[in-house]
């Protein structure tokens, strides 16, 4: 409800009232755009499944090197650009990081992006850190951000082996 402002603050109050209204409209419009885009990204992640995020492990028969390869081709059905970033961490049972990698891609509206993260452990490391006995820990973090990376969500999954 607008109160009567009869004196010298009239102009300042009018400007403040206008600014508040403009900010309220901006917050509603940006929230709708941002949330719609994030929800679209989230539903693409679920419906695309393996295409959005695909995890593979390979062992080099010659060198014995073990590799964890994470590939993704996220799509964006939203109205704004999104940035999808992925971080993978391998830890030993003492929670010490033994290998980590990350990558990100920017996806325009109605477009696709691509990223690859590759982690490698030598045969000695693979056995030393307990991965051969399925006793290591893998942490996977997926970040999706929009609105010039100002808003977003992240999903962090931590899987402990040997349980």
């Amino acid at each position, binding site marked *: 409800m607008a109160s009567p402002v009869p004196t010298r603050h009239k102009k300042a*109050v009018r400007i403040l009232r206008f600014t508040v209204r403009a900010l309220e409209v901006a917050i509603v419009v940006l929230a709708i755009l941002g949330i719609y885009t994030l929800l679209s990204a989230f539903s693409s992640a679920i419906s695309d499944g393996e295409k959005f995020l695909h995890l593979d492990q390979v062992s080099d028969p010659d060198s014995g090197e073990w590799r964890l390869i994470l590939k993704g081709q996220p799509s964006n059905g939203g109205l704004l650009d999104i940035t999808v970033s992925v971080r993978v961490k391998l830890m030993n049972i003492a929670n010490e990081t033994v290998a980590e990698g990350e990558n990100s891609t920017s996806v325009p509206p109605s477009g696709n992006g691509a990223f690859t993260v590759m982690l490698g452990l030598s045969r000695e490391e693979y056995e030393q850190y307990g991965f051969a006995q399925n006793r290591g820990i893998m942490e996977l973090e997926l970040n999706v951000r929009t609105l010039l990376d100002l808003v977003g969500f992240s*999903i962090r999954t931590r899987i*402990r082996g040997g349980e």
Partner: protein
Amino acid sequence: MNKRTQGILRAVLYLVLFVALPRVVLSRLPAEILRMLGTGGFDLEAFVLSLTISGAALALIAVTRGFTQPRSVMNLTASISSQLVWFYLVLFFIGLGQPWSFGKAQITASGGPATMTVIFDIRFFVGLAAAILGLTITKMVLEHISLREQSTADQTE
């Protein structure tokens, strides 16, 4: 409708919306949903209690505003308090019941060897809401000063 009736009606509306309604919904929720929310680390009782306290505060403020003169300091204090309670409610809903996360809400669920944490980062909107709050309070103070000046001028004439 005069100011007092408006204040009372507002207070009743806040009590219905924030005190009675959440309790009715809570009492009618299936046990399965309550159990699911509980295992997800969501404290529904605390959520409803926070809403009740906010609703009671808003009702008290509405009555105070209705029964005080617009140029009184009490009225200004009540108006500012009302804005602060609404801002708290924005933080409360954006933070999924954790207002002091300031827009960075976190939900953790674990099952067997896996733990999944979902983090929503909407601090940008909290920043915008804080800016709106600051400007609104400034506007209220200026309006109050002007009203008092006008009142003093009227008395002098």
